């Protein structure tokens, strides 16, 4: 009976729960789903991670290649792409990336550029001759909402675990040599964490939405924090929010940021590199 009610009148169903300050999956309004992380799970990639927030699963693999630098001569390339394959949800079909995937990819690129977590000049192998290209590919394996947070978490943890083989360029002949046996860690200066909230019925804020909650939302906010600073706030339309609500979101962002960063550190420590 409850299941049918849920399908026929999802909003009413949710309202009855939310009146009592609880969500249908037993969470409080500001509570995250259990977050699980695994680092270094794909040995063919230079850096990799798997992040699960509840059911939502995202795998990130970083593949390093070398290329000639652009006009500035020393900046490397970071190329993040999010792949929402038809594997992860019935809503996606095979073919080129859809709108959501494109938005997420751009969000990831902005996140790296805004936070400067990996400096492009650190990706230089030999000035004017050779730089690193890091292809950061995020594959969604199970889509149950809040992909943004899962993607940032997966990307940052994969970047932090990335190690590159030593590549040298001969000064005179220009010959490139790779020594796969010795590796260096990629310098990552900071670790931005995103926190996504949705607005329900134009007033209530729910943290870490599931895909069902996302479909009922009247608006969404993503706050990206780094340490004690706010990196960016992304609010694509929807319900206008009051000053207090925005402050509330930022507050939640800091709490989540702290949790997530300690999770990354713990996982990195437990995996011997």
């Amino acid at each position: 009976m409850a299941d049918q009610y849920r399908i026929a009148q999802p909003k009413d169903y949710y309202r009855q729960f939310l009146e009592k300050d609880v969500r249908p999956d037993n969470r409080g309004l500001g509570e995250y789903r259990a977050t699980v992380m695994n680092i270094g799970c794909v040995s063919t990639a230079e850096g990799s991670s798997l992040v699960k927030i509840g059911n939502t699963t995202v795998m990130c693999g970083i593949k390093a290649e070398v290329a000639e630098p652009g006009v500035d001569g020393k900046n490397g390339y970071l190329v993040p792409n999010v792949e929402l394959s038809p594997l992860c949800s019935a809503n996606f079909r095979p073919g080129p990336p859809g709108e959501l995937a494109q938005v997420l990819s751009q969000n990831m690129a902005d996140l790296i550029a805004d936070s400067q977590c990996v400096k492009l000049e650190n990706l230089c192998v030999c000035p004017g001759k050779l730089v690193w290209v890091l292809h950061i590919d995020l594959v969604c394996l199970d889509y149950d909402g809040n992909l943004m947070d899962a993607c940032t978490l997966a990307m940052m943890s994969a970047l932090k675990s990335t190690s590159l083989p030593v590549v040298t360029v001969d000064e005179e002949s220009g010959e490139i040599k790779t020594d796969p046996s010795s590796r260096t860690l990629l310098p990552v200066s900071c670790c931005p964490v995103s926190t996504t909230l949705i607005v329900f019925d134009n007033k209530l804020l729910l943290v870490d939405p599931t895909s069902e909650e996302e479909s009922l939302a009247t608006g969404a906010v993503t706050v990206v924090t780094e340490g004690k600073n706010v990196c960016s706030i992304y609010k694509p339309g929807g319900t206008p929010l009051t000053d207090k609500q925005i402050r509330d979101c930022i507050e939640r962002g800091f709490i989540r940021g702290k949790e997530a960063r300690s999770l990354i550190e713990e996982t990195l420590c437990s995996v011997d590199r």
Partner: protein
Amino acid sequence: MPTDTRRISGPEISHSPYDYCLTPPIDLIGADKKRLDGRLPAQLRPLFLRAGVISQARGSGYIEVDQTKVICAVYGPREVLRREDFSLKGQLTCDFKFTTFSCRLRRQHQQDNQEKDLSVQLLEALEPAVCLQKYPKSQINIYVTVLQNDGSALSAAIICASLALASAGIEMYDLVLASSVAMRDALTIVDPTEREEEAVLNKTHKAELNAGSMTVAFLPSINQVSAISSDGEILCETLTKSMRLCVENCLKLYPVLQQALVKHRLDKQADTS
């Protein structure tokens, strides 16, 4: 290749750093009659199988054969999108994809010819097992993603997909098992790793007549081979011998697949009660 405007693109030309170092050719078998990873020629790798890993899919499976990791989702039976595709027999579609970071060299986002070929081979292996006449006017979609390829990816994908189909409750004549072998001269090794596969196919001296790999998909309870494919130059006698060896190995895996399926059913029952 046409430029992809829907993805973030890196520099036009980039090379893998591993192009600039020598990978020494490997011996398939050492002096101690053991392979590079310490296995005997006829020894299979340990296997991990699990059903129900993707919450959004009707059925799903995950397989790990040592370093080879494959995930699969089954959606449907669902409506046929195009009217002209209507038929009284159900349709099965397979989509085989390597993630960009799954191999030693980076792969592209778009499906390449090898992946298209593997999709067809996967379909050939599964189609004889599914009772398609029970699903008129509908289609069943199988999506397979290889997260990491360390050899025998096709046979892992077939096992995984057949588990996913069964866990989705799709009616089948039997579960599909698969197994691969690689051969060179008189030596036959089962369940080859990626380096072994490559060593067999990239033989340099022409004198050898017998070098190649083979994959067989088998339906144990009706004692039928649903797909068979080989690469490389092989003598007919070796081919027949290897086929029988593959079938034997498939039978060894049968209980593993059955147990994974039973475990999935029990878990599901425990969840609902």
